[in-house]
């Protein structure tokens, strides 16, 4: 039961990471276009932050507690 809850948390976080991109793009006054250290905020988020966060979420919340058998078994 606990593993299902953990995975659900991970899935919700991943969906939120996707939604964050859409929300950032929808902010008024071209906020997403503000440049920080050479990249715009939208590209920092969509190209760097969200994918890196996704890796952390996958490691923390998507892992199965059982040993991993091959995919085709």
């Amino acid at each position, binding site marked *: 039961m606990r593993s299902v809850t953990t995975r659900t948390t991970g899935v919700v976080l991943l969906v939120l990471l996707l939604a964050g991109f*859409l929300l950032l*793009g*929808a902010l008024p006054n071209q906020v997403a276009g503000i440049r920080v250290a050479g990249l715009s905020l939208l*590209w920092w988020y969509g*190209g760097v932050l969200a994918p890196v966060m996704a890796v952390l979420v*996958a490691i923390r*919340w998507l892992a199965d507690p059982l040993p991993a058998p091959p995919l085709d078994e």
Partner: protein
Amino acid sequence: MTSVSRVLAVWLTPAVMLALPAALAARGPDGLWLGLVVTLAPLIALGLAARPPAPPPGGAVGAGEMLFPVVTLLITVGVLLWANIALAGDVAAWLGARRWQGIVIAAAAGWLLTAWRPLRRSAPLLLAVAFAAALVALLQLAWALGLGPVAAWDRVANQSAFRFPPSSPWVISGRDLAAVRGSAPLVFDEVHRLTAPAGGVLRARTRDATRLAEIEWTLAPGQTVTLRAGDEITRGSTLRLRFEADKRVPGAPPSGMAWAEGRPRRWLERAGLAVTLLAGAAALLRAGLTPRLGRDGAGFVAGGLLLAFVWAQAWAVYAMIQAPDLFLGGVTLERLLELPAPALFAAPWRRTLQALLLAAGLAAFLASSLALRERLGALDSTGGGEIGHDPGLWAGLFGGAALASLWPVDPWALSLLALGGAGCALGPAALWPPRRGRAATTAGVAGLLVFASLAAAQLRGSSGGLLGAAIAYPALIAAPAGAFVLWLGRRVRG
């Protein structure tokens, strides 16, 4: 680790991998959205509901109920192979070889690898080779340019215009217009003198004040013609043309800033793309399976997807700096497999890097072929996985895909069609397994019918709004429709 490589190889086929930099270059933020969804969709699909379906109270699942997912996935795998073999043909044609040569090499190597038992376990090695070769080419390009990815992005985003570099093949020797397969109009933004080194017939639509005129020139070898701002070369001209250096590339975004900020947001299209890829990931990675990944496995899958996305972003911006002629007529996938730096490396090293890129593409295709074969075999529980080991069946699949690839198609559109169709047919039941297979089959057929109806409407053209988004991405309506039928089936059967 083996299942990690299979997940990556099934998902990251060469057509998908090259679609990322192509979309990033062509559509800026929309391409970034595609890359983010491609990176996150498999993780979401793998993370959703890991419980296997409970066995039906009446006994085992009937063979008829297993037939639908097996046939659906078989067709999906066939279409994915078709898309990637067609891409091999496109790459061969773009690099100056015959289209059929690329097709034969890819199809024959793919079939040999799936038919020859000792090589069937080589998918992880092939995937590692593909990643390593693509990374070496990228790092070499970054080192030669002396620019990190962020600095490269900054340079692209600050460009006032995308212009033909003097080292471009389109400027030095010219290229055949027939090789331009993109759908973007070849409209000129400034006066441009074109030369036909070998002569030929050039058709153009010229604008004189407010009057449009269709003009056809028969050019002698070496003869030039001057087009003005607003003039357009019409499709169907097949002569070799040389463009002027430092002139704007027809079809390119107006400036780097326009590229970085993108067009007005198209929310429904973005939602449609996300639903298509999420449902497709559920079908490809979850239907009939209960994949379990440990912490290392989940980390390796997510890390591999991240690495692929970072490579795609970096490759796109380096290509836009070194070869802005990428935009000519629209960015197509095969152009991304050409080393975008003709003047940056000496001849032997340039050829080596180009060979490395092609090796990466072929290795990725072979890894995907093996992984797709194993994926299909894993679904065939009643036949003991025989469908994954039948040389005749796979010869037919590769042969059919090769034959179909002789006619150029858009590999990404084909991949999206395969993922959307499979997603609507198998996705809902894969994520929410019913106790009886019949409910899953009914929902799958309903989802597939809605998908096919909307996909057929694509032939009549697309419009705006929800209907336009549903026609462009049929899974946007068809996947929820299938899920609704599944929900109804579960309620009726209690």
